[in-house]
């Protein structure tokens, strides 16, 4: 139990810790498009990523980034570059760039890559902000990717298609082409934010009121220049 209550300096709700545990178990297992070793390597790149000036970036177009198997690196140049972009400059990602990467990787693979970033980032931030050490990444389990991809998809106007019939807002179904990855990162986000109360404008069962939570959410989103 890497995220046991005793590892935190303050009491953390059990359902939040359970979501972290589930995320780490998912990260350690082969995914739909990536092996566990590749997913863990992505998480490691994510943690090491730092914003860099434009002149210091690696080749600016994906035509210069190799996406080939290389025994010396756990993931290709293209995958490493994509993880770095999602980590530190996601707001600069354009439709053309995403389309080129999705063409190279596949839509479910791109969605799973984003899900790794969108799952590990909040868990790391939570630990960091509460004064807990960042949890070491799990040991990857051997095995091949499962090939999981949503059976039927629809165009929602995003870079990625969404699973047909997936309920909720666009942000909930944004990565649903990779079903398990999407549900894993959604579980973490819902545990940390709204739980089952999203549709309720009044929250009376927590330490903060809904306007207090939404103020923090709005300020954080604006600082990240998140339009959505």
């Amino acid at each position, binding site marked *: 139990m890497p995220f046991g209550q005793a590892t935190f300096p*303050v009491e*953390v*709700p059990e359902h939040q810790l359970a979501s972290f545990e589930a995320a780490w178990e998912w990260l350690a297992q082969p995914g739909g498009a990536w092996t566990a070793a590749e997913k863990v390597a992505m998480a490691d790149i994510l943690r090491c990523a730092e914003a860099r000036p434009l002149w210091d970036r690696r080749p600016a177009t994906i035509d210069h980034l190799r996406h080939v198997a290389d025994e010396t690196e756990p993931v290709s140049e293209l995958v490493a570059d994509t993880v770095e972009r*999602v980590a530190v400059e*996601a*707001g*600069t*990602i*354009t*439709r053309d760039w*995403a389309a080129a990467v999705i063409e190279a990787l596949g839509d479910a693979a791109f969605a799973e890559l984003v899900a790794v970033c*969108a*799952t590990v*980032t*909040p868990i790391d*931030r*939570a630990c960091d*902000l*509460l004064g807990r050490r960042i949890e070491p990444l799990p040991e990857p389990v051997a095995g091949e990717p499962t090939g999981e991809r949503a059976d039927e998809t629809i165009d929602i*106007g*995003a*870079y*990625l298609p969404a699973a047909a019939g997936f309920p*909720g807002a*666009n*942000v*909930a179904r*944004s*990565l649903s082409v990779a079903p398990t990855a999407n549900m894993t*990162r959604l579980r*973490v*986000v819902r545990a*940390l*934010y*709204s739980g089952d109360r*999203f*549709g309720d*404008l*009044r929250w009376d069962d927590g*330490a*903060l*009121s809904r*306007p*207090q*939570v*939404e*103020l*923090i*959410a*709005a*300020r*954080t*989103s*604006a*600082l*990240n*220049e*998140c*339009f*959505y």
Partner: protein
Amino acid sequence: MLLRASSAALGEHADTSAAVGNTVDPNVDHGAVLAAYATAAHHGAADAPSEAAAAVRSAVGVAGWVEAAMTVAAFNGLVRTADASGIPLDEGVVSATAGDRARLGLDEFGGSANSDLSVAPGADPHPARFG
């Protein structure tokens, strides 16, 4: 939108310009302390937000601080999902947020390119539609 709507549900009127740091008093209980914490958490390294965190604990208690930290964490995941997947604003949100977006400068953010913003302003859709 949810800041304004949830505040209105309590009979209050939150100042949404607090989202972009344009107000001293967001008109939310302990709002200035919470907004300062979100700012410190964004800019700081591991121990940088400690002063802001202490202010939050003093204002809303340890459990409130944990909720504040978890909210910051959650939205650092959501921004990466939204921007990397290029999702547009949901139906009804474009019109409901037109005024706030223009006033706060949010349409300047890169992700705005993914939504058709040429929709007339309208009323807030209920958040239950997005859960």
